[in-house]
């Protein structure tokens, strides 16, 4: 059961990664990377139960935390770039 869930999560991660590479706008890519991070948290948790080591939940919590802070930092960075350019925002935003 856990193995099937892990494979499903891997498929979803591949789809999110494809969107991150293909995404036409910056927002698409950021959202895809955020989703990829969330799926990584789920994968770590499922893998922990798959191998009988529920300690992995601690690592999953840490990963969720780092993912959250990282996405906020990237969003601030993109916002700063958009604000620093004097001309109106490019079409990407």
């Amino acid at each position, binding site marked *: 059961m856990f193995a099937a869930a892990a494979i499903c999560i891997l498929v979803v991660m591949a789809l999110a990664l494809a969107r991150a590479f293909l995404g036409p706008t910056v927002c698409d890519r950021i959202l895809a990377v955020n989703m990829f991070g969330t799926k990584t948290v789920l994968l770590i948790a499922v893998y922990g139960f798959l191998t009988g080591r529920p300690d*992995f939940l*601690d*690592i999953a919590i*840490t990963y969720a*935390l780092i993912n*959250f*802070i990282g996405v*906020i*930092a990237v969003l*601030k960075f993109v916002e700063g770039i958009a604000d620093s350019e004097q001309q109106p925002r490019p079409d990407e935003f």
Partner: protein
Amino acid sequence: MSHDIVLKVIAKLLIPFILLFALYVQFHGDFGPGGGFQAGVIFAAGIILYALTNGPDAAMRIMPPRLLTPLAALGVLLYGGVGIATVLLGGHFLNYDVLAHDAVHGQHYGILLIELGVGVTVASVMLVIFFAFITQEP
């Protein structure tokens, strides 16, 4: 910066739990995944989240950079001090057995102290690097 009200409130709710989780990773590191390095990084991540939501000046008010550099040295000093203390108590360098009457208790004290030193140093150095990056002129 002022229109990020949702982000500010969520960060305000999350930061205490992030710091608490860092302490859990620090002191539960003997029994589960974790330890001083990871706890230091998580603690610094909490402060970095505060800096991202409330601005670098507010973060530097609660964690003054002039305090961080001595703290980074203090952690190393604690680590080395435990080693020197074990030598003075008659053991080898970082041989925790001599720290208490019982070898098992000595190991506990020794690991707790050096992990505390590692945690303090890592958290301080992470914040020093972060502040150095966000305060430099573009």
